[in-house]
């Protein structure tokens, strides 16, 4: 067992966990943050995406010891990034309005990947959106509505 201190969605935690435990399992089991999903467990699908010190990562491939001292944002904390007390982040609002979510399994990862994308390219073109979300697989929407949601979120941010 190792003692890990990390900050998740603004809250500090101190945990006794096996050092090789996947960050995904620590979030879901130890911290009860079940918004982060497991699809493939091997880095292919992106449903476990979270922000680790601001970078998009697949939490199924991160051993928790490598998050010592880190700051993590999961889907549960995304709204707070928009401002204190916000219920939904503009990206979440746009996914809702544009039908970017159906069964919802891919959605937490898609939202975080979109957040990371818009930090890098506030006004992404379609190919940048496709590249930014290429690691996030969706079995339901056919992607078109997701791309529309991302474009709408970019417009919303741009008009602020």
């Amino acid at each position, binding site marked *: 067992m190792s003692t890990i201190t990390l900050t998740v969605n603004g809250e500090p935690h101190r945990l006794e966990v096996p050092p*090789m435990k*996947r960050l995904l399992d620590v979030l879901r089991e130890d911290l009860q943050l079940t918004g982060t999903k497991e699809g493939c467990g091997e880095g292919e699908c992106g449903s476990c995406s979270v922000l680790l010190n601001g970078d998009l990562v697949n939490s199924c491939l*991160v051993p928790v010891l490598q998050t010592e001292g880190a700051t993590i944002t999961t889907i549960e904390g995304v709204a707070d990034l928009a401002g204190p007390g916000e219920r939904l982040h503009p990206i979440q609002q746009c996914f809702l309005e544009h039908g970017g979510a159906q069964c919802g399994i891919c959605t937490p990862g898609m939202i975080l990947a979109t957040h990371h994308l818009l930090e890098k390219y506030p006004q992404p073109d379609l190919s940048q959106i496709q590249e930014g979300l290429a690691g996030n697989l969706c079995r339901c929407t056919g992607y078109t509505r997701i791309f529309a949601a991302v474009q709408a979120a970019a417009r919303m941010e741009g008009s602020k």
Partner: protein
Amino acid sequence: MRSNAANYDLIAPPSLEAVLAVLASEPGSYTVLAGGTEIMVALGAGRLSARRLISIQHLRELRFLSASDDTLILGAGTTFTDIRRDAILASEFPLLVQAASWTGSIANQNRGTLGGNIVNGSPAADSPPALLAYEAELTLLSSRGTRVVPYTDFHLGYKRTILAPDELLYSIALKRSYQGYKTYSRKVGTRKAQAISKVAIAALARVEEGRITDVRIGAASLQDRPARMTATEQAVLGQAITADTMQRAREAVLAESHPIDDIRSTARYRGQVAANLVEEFLRSLQTDPR
């Protein structure tokens, strides 16, 4: 079946020196863990045989890019995202930047390291062909000292390398001497990003008065390891880019390709595609005057 994480140990000594000391005290008993995009996949699939791991992911000493007038050095812990962000790499080593952009998704590029891609030793990995074309030099480090080796000597066979159990890959050096070279790279797979290649080549050449006066071709998935295509290079060196030269190049490609048959493709298909890619490379030298 997924492995039980509780059966594994992972340590993260605070400095490069401390990591080397652990590796030296019990050579072979620890497996190095960098970005984890290979090792954690093995853990997830229940096929990680190493029980004791040592993390180097947090070591600042391994994550750097430094340029002098004639050399660019990348620390082994440089991520693919770092590579895609660097201005010198973008202007002078486009083959490596292209390879980085092909290496899985953005999330994968944020974690995966150049050192991990090299040491993992897959014949299909994306950066090795570019590093072979640029004649990269590796610095290997242990508490016994350092050794500098040409990258061409690093891979011994399928997933076998010259790295000793107490050694780390420390850095990768590239000579800044490719002004005026034309470059070509192409990855053929089910999908360009994300999917492991069936065949890929990275090549560069200098053409003077219609003749090829220097040429390097690195290939993935054509042998049991990443390999430079020296016979093909010899077949075209000094030649004008004619139909005849292309024919001889195609024959050389087939002669020096000994790809494996695996779930991704057959040897026959890989050889043919590689010949097509080399031909396309030669045509690009002909039709793109610069």
